[in-house]
């Protein structure tokens, strides 16, 4: 197995484009194929910014450092090119697309991955979609609902996981997918992620979360603690447990000093 990292983030600095706001102040991170890395940290520490910079959100401007995907400069690519290269971000706040059904949306997303002139086989697509929905305990009717339109918080998160399961990324960035889920929903999400990893052991996950809880179901290889735009500690799963016990105060103080 090739052991070179799929994602390498180096001294990454980023802020809000057009505004003088620095958010990421030098982030380093390397994820090898098949690894799960958790990023934890208090609200406002820059976790979502990191996820969005990796996915290519135009609102953020990279002011220093680099992000590489399998040795390629990710920052040079458009968001759709990153998706085609295997990056998927499960949004913390998924966006509503009225009038577009989930099925149609996913069909278009898969079609966009094909060469010009190649047509997605609708029968295969239907089969894949049904199978993935079954895996995630979803009602068939769910695929006919307009994307995130009128969804509850939990439904939006499950929709993100469904998309991930259909699009089968090489690198999944999950931004607080566990927030607001009850324990049953959480287990479904975890089952989705774990099944995808069984199917593709090389799939890597960057799991952003507030709570240790989900890490009981999706076991991380590494846990990073992010405070004020920097990763202030990295370690094994035990870091998450310590964090759960003592909170972020310790890190904040240490960091401020």
């Amino acid at each position, binding site marked *: 197995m090739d052991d070179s990292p799929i994602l390498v983030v180096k001294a990454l600095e980023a802020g809000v484009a057009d505004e003088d706001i620095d958010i990421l102040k030098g982030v380093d991170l390397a994820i090898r194929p098949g690894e799960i890395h958790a990023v934890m940290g208090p609200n406002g520490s820059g976790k979502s910014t990191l996820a969005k910079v990796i*996915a290519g959100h135009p609102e953020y401007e990279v002011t220093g450092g680099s992000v590489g995907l399998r040795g390629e400069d990710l920052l040079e690519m458009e968001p*759709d090119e990153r998706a085609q290269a295997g990056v*998927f971000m499960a949004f913390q706040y998924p*966006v509503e697309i*009225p*009038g577009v059904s989930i099925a149609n949306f996913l069909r278009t997303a898969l079609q*966009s991955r094909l060469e010009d002139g190649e047509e997605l086989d609708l029968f295969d697509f239907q089969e894949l979609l049904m199978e993935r929905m079954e895996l995630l305990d979803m009602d068939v009717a769910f695929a006919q609902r*307009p994307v995130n339109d009128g969804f509850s918080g939990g439904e939006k998160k499950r929709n993100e996981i469904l998309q991930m399961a259909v699009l089968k990324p090489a690198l999944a960035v999950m931004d607080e997918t566990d927030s607001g889920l009850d324990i049953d929903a959480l287990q479904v999400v975890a089952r989705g992620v774990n099944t995808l990893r069984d199917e593709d052991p090389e799939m890597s996950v960057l799991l952003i979360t507030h709570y240790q809880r989900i890490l009981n179901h999706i076991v991380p290889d590494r846990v990073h603690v992010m405070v004020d735009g920097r990763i202030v500690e990295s370690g094994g799963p035990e870091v998450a447990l310590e964090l759960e016990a003592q909170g972020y105060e310790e890190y904040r103080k240490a960091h401020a000093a």
Partner: protein
Amino acid sequence: MPSNEVIQGLGLDDYKFGFVTDSEPVFKTRPGLDEEVVRQISARKDEPEWMLKRRLKALRIYQAKPMPQWGGDLSELEETLSRTYFYSKPQEQMERSWDDVPENIKQTFERLGIPEAERKILAGVGAQYDSEMVYHSLKEEWESKGVIFDSIEDGLKNHPELFRKHFGTVIPAADNKFAALNSAVWSGGSFVYIPPGVQLETPLQAYFRVNQERLGQFERTLIIAGEGSRAHYIEGCTAPVYSTDSFHSGVIEIVVNRDAYFRYTTIQNWSNNMYNLVTQRALVQQGAHMEWLDGNLGSKLTMKYPSCYLMGEGAHGEILSIAYAGDGQHQDTGGKVIHVAPRTTSSIVSKSISKGTGRASYRGLCKVYDGASNARSNVECDALLINETSRTDTFPYIEIDEKSATVGHEATVSKVGDEQLFYLMSRGMDEAEAMALIVRGFIEPIAKELPLEYAVELNRLIELEMEGSVG
């Protein structure tokens, strides 16, 4: 018509094919409009005296009425009209062969997925629908049920009494300047009669009509739906209509008799130089149900407000419209619902999209007369702006003289959001695909009412349009 007229702008921004035709019409009036021109038109059509008189009277009304000062910019129209040939009868034979149609036009049709037979009609290659078989079996069905589906000229010739009884009763010449103009110079269009109680499963499609003249600039359609009948009429196509004319002014009159159901679907995509000023109106009798499904694309300026006059108790009128205003285009569209009788109900749903410097205006009237007790009406108009330069506005006119009426009006304006685009792009769609998906979602509530092949064409068209909208 000058023999080498350049036809430009088939209505799609991103391919303007210059196109030259050498075909000479067999007969044409001189440019501009006067009594002599009207007499010539009537004589060519071999019309009865009463129709000539009607035409001449309409001409005087047209000449007396001032240009409308509302809606879109008509300041250049007077000049355009002075150059217009008000009647030109095309050659009887095919004007040109398919082989003569330039490759790029063929490619457009291909990209739009237009069926072969329709492509030929659109390209001006003959007017007969190729699927003779399909047409014949339908024609037999219609004939056996007593349905009349003719050209407007044949309607007048073959069914003079029925024709005269209804012609001009829904939209009199004096209704507005352009209705008067049409009443003076009309040519081409359909005459439809559905006998009482007859229910048609298959829509009446204008393509199938025999002896069709090229879609006229001054088309006139008269439809009479008998008591308790049920039918759907479809005209138009999302492909750009390729025409040398720069002015189109149609009149569509529909009588929906007691307890009948009638739907009129039209989608038109005019070339960018076109003024499109159409009057469409239905008289809806007791317990009857009328639906206008109206799609407007292309043109320089379209002013079109399909209307339902709810004359009988419990009558229902519905207007669903989609307007797409591309660069430099103005769509001034909407609808009118006039409640005359008790317990009449109506709904208008209007969706507009403006791209580039396009402007879409919603203009609607809801009038409830005194005595139309418990009338209910609901208007919803939504506008979607694609670019910073795109424009939309709303002119809802509400006149209510009946206390027990309930009228609702809701208007929204939205922009294609950066968050939406990013969300879709992060799933692998490029910007144009993402934009097209958002637009398609926006019009979905109306598009799902369209016949499938129209909906598919419309979707493809939106995709093509969006390709031209991103930098």
